């Protein structure tokens, strides 16, 4: 309302003045909670600074990595002219290979072509396409997002104007899965609700259901006729094994769910800046697959027309060349292993420092992130005094940890936690009402 007010009163101004002030009512946007961490890190001049913010893989020297398989793919496609006429063929190849990766190349849905697949602008773009599609064809539906989830999920479904809810997921005391509450929320949601699930390496918590728990969830979804939408951003990063990381989706597939899946190649292929991903929606038959694909393309056409070809060609080359693909599989395992090693190292360092807190979750949690349990105050303290950056929810990207900085990191964490008792620590009781925080400045 106030905007109209502003515009009305502004009409009283002379025309030339009014024409100059269209944007007066535009406020500065709040900073994105994840990218702003990188901004703060970049602005810090300390030589010991550590960026544990954005989930981008780093090697043991803390440097970004270009995978060898990508260099091979770049060399292979160099000199090929990527022209608009070729890009659609490349795009189709990408989709074909992507769905095989997630559903398994021998799965029935693949063999029968019962999927609508379109290339998307990485994971974000795939989620947004689906959210717009959901809004268009189920305008009254809601999306249930896990609590917590990647912050941008909330933005995506909100901007697509789909009402959102959350379902229980993380148990802050156990630093693990709150399975009972999760199942309750699944049961209590209205039949036929849309749910967003992280198939592996949950972001931000790193807490994944076990195989048995996934089967239970899938079963309950059948009972309730819920729509499962998977956001697969870390295939390969959870266990190091691409097939194993897709297990949850394949369980749902076996149970006959006609699910949807967003895939990202940002992390597992190191293609962050190229924005390559895929959205697939499973269907009853090919006819429906063709119809749904046409609708997804229509939505994409009004958003960005078509995806950028360079990254597409790289992924398509990697996935369809057996040698390059084999190299990729090895490199993904290498990345996952390094992160696993860093988890172990950090945990050991903390124990060696004599920290009395329970750091079991560092190695229990899976994937790129560790949901440390650090409070916002502690996070700020780490940034201010130790030049260590992470998101306010205490999420640490383990990819930013190296053999060179792990001891410094352990020491810093120990410093900020040794006087603070946050919820349900090693004593296993809820001490939140008694928490004492000594600010060390």
């Amino acid at each position, binding site marked *: 309302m106030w905007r109209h007010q502003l515009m009305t009163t502004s009409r009283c101004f002379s*025309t*030339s003045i*009014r*024409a*100059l*002030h*269209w*944007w007066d009512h*535009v*406020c*500065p*946007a709040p900073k*994105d909670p994840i990218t702003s961490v990188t901004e703060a890190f970049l602005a810090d001049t300390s030589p010991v600074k550590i960026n544990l913010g954005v989930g*981008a893989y780093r090697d043991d020297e803390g440097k970004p990595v*270009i995978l060898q398989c990508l260099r091979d793919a*770049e060399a292979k496609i160099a000199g090929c002219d990527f*022209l608009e*006429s*070729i890009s659609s063929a490349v795009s189709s190849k990408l989709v074909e290979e992507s769905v095989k990766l997630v559903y398994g190349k021998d799965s*029935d849905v693949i063999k029968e072509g*019962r999927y609508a697949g379109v290339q998307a*602008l990485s994971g*974000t773009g795939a989620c947004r396409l689906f959210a*717009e599609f959901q809004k268009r064809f189920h305008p009254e539906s809601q999306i249930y997002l896990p609590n917590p989830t990647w912050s*941008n999920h909330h933005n995506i479904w909100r*901007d697509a104007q789909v009402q959102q809810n959350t379902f229980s997921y993380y148990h802050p005391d156990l630093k693990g899965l709150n399975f009972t509450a999760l199942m309750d929320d699944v049961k209590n949601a209205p*039949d*036929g609700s849309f749910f967003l699930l992280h198939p592996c390496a949950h972001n931000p918590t790193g807490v994944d259901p076990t195989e048995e728990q996934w089967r239970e969830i899938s*079963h309950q979804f*059948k*009972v*309730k006729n819920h*729509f499962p939408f998977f956001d697969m951003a870390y295939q390969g990063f959870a266990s190091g094994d691409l097939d194993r990381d897709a297990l949850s989706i394949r369980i749902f597939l*076996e*149970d*006959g769910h*006609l699910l949807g899946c967003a895939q990202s190649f*940002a992390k597992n292929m190191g293609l*962050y*800046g*190229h*924005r390559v991903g895929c959205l697939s929606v*499973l269907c*009853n038959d090919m006819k429906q697959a063709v*119809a749904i694909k*046409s*609708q997804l*393309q*229509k*939505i994409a*056409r*009004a*958003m*960005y*027309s*078509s*995806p*950028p*070809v360079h*990254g597409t060609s790289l992924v398509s080359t990697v996935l369809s060349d057996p040698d390059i693909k084999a190299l990729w599989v090895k490199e993904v395992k290498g990345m996952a292993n390094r992160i696993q090693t860093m988890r172990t190292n950090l945990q050991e360092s903390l124990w060696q420092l004599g920290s009395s807190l329970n750091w079991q979750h560092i190695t229990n949690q899976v994937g790129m992130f560790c949901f440390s349990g650090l409070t916002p105050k502690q996070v700020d303290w780490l940034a201010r005094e130790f030049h260590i950056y992470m998101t306010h929810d205490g999420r640490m990207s383990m990819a930013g940890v190296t053999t060179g900085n792990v001891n410094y990191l352990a020491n810093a964490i120990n410093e900020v936690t040794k006087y603070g008792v946050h919820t349900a620590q090693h004593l296993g009781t809820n001490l939140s009402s008694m928490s004492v925080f000594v600010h060390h400045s």
Partner: protein
Amino acid sequence: MASSMLSLASASPSASLSMHDTLKGKVRLGSGNLTAWFHKEKSNPFINTKSSGRISMAVAVNVSRFEGITMAPPDPILGVSEAFKADNDEKKLNLGVGAYRTEELQPYVLNVVKKAENLMLERGEYKEYLPIEGLAAFNKVTAELLLGADNTVIKQQRVATVQGLSGTGSLRLAAALIERYFPGAKVLISSPTWGNHKNIFNDARVPWSEYRYYDPKTVGLDFEGMIADLKAAPEGSFILLHGCAHNPTGIDPTPEQWEKIADVIQEKNHIPFFDVAYQGFASGSLDADAASVRLFAARGMELLVAQSYSKNLGLYAERIGAINVICSSVDAAARVKSQLKRLARPMYSNPPVHGARIVANVVGDPTLFDEWKAEMDMMAGRIKGVRQKLFDSLSAKDKSGKDWSFILKQIGMFSFTGLNKAQSENMTNKWHVYMTKDGRISLAGLNLAKCEYLADAIVDSYHNVS
């Protein structure tokens, strides 16, 4: 939805961990026995409420939530290329999509682009995320290209520039900004305009209406109509203008007409919103083609400008462009930029890096930039040459005395032939000439060798079909 499913839930209260535990092992599902069904009032014939096993559950419903979804209509522009590909006739000609072709009718990768890509390959640059607003080096050069590096608005830092996914993506960001900050404000688009403009504003939930533009009688600009419609629009409307080489008509206002358009826009407190997809393609000169935008900026107006590098750098498939918002103050520009970022984040998080690096390298390097200007000139020149030959052929073949000079007057890649839908269909069905049904032909897809054939087709369609 599927309320009948609740009956199973209540019949099997032990649908819990313990029950599940008894059913170990995977149940391999074939899909052959599953049929699509979905009626609220029907009870689920597959659910066996006696057996509480997961097995019977798993055999049940393989229902798609998207059962009733119908096939989307083919895109009128991209659909042309698809139809062309499917045609086996050797005389076929694709004058559909506005993608530049050489005289041999082959796609063309600019030499400067190859050079830039080689440089990038040698450097082996990282593939890290760009910031949400895109590559800083790209944003800088793109604004300078548009406005001139020494333009006051740039020196005063009053331009909010955000890298976007080519023209479409940049327009969509702008549309989202309009929807959020000017709810209810209308965008006026020319009649006709590029087909995807409507889709973009529809999907962004921005209301739009048309202003008169093309005059079929003169095959020229309906200037009076345009001005009248701009005057009649509610104050504070957004006016979508094509910076140069209007798509689909090829008809641009003259400099004097631009001045009058700016007058009316200022008078009515409208906001000018430029779509610049062909900078360099209209006249062959990058600066000359930006004259309309610079005219408005010079008047101190606030405006929006979407840019695309698809055509002028041949980077169609890399999706590189930008949205620029020229504001009255540095502070406004900063705030607007932050909100554009906020809109981009839930759309795609951050834009693709490859095309941005190419543009930054080409435009930012004086040698490459000069080479680009020369290639630009060559491409625009080829199109002008083809226009001339087509005009000559038409004048020679058509004895009716019809004035075909609009072919020469129209600017850029496209020509609005004045052919109607039936006539355009004749072009395709009889002559295997692929074009859009609004009578638009892309001269970029024409070469000197085929001008006579095309002239025959046009003359035939124009005179023998109604």
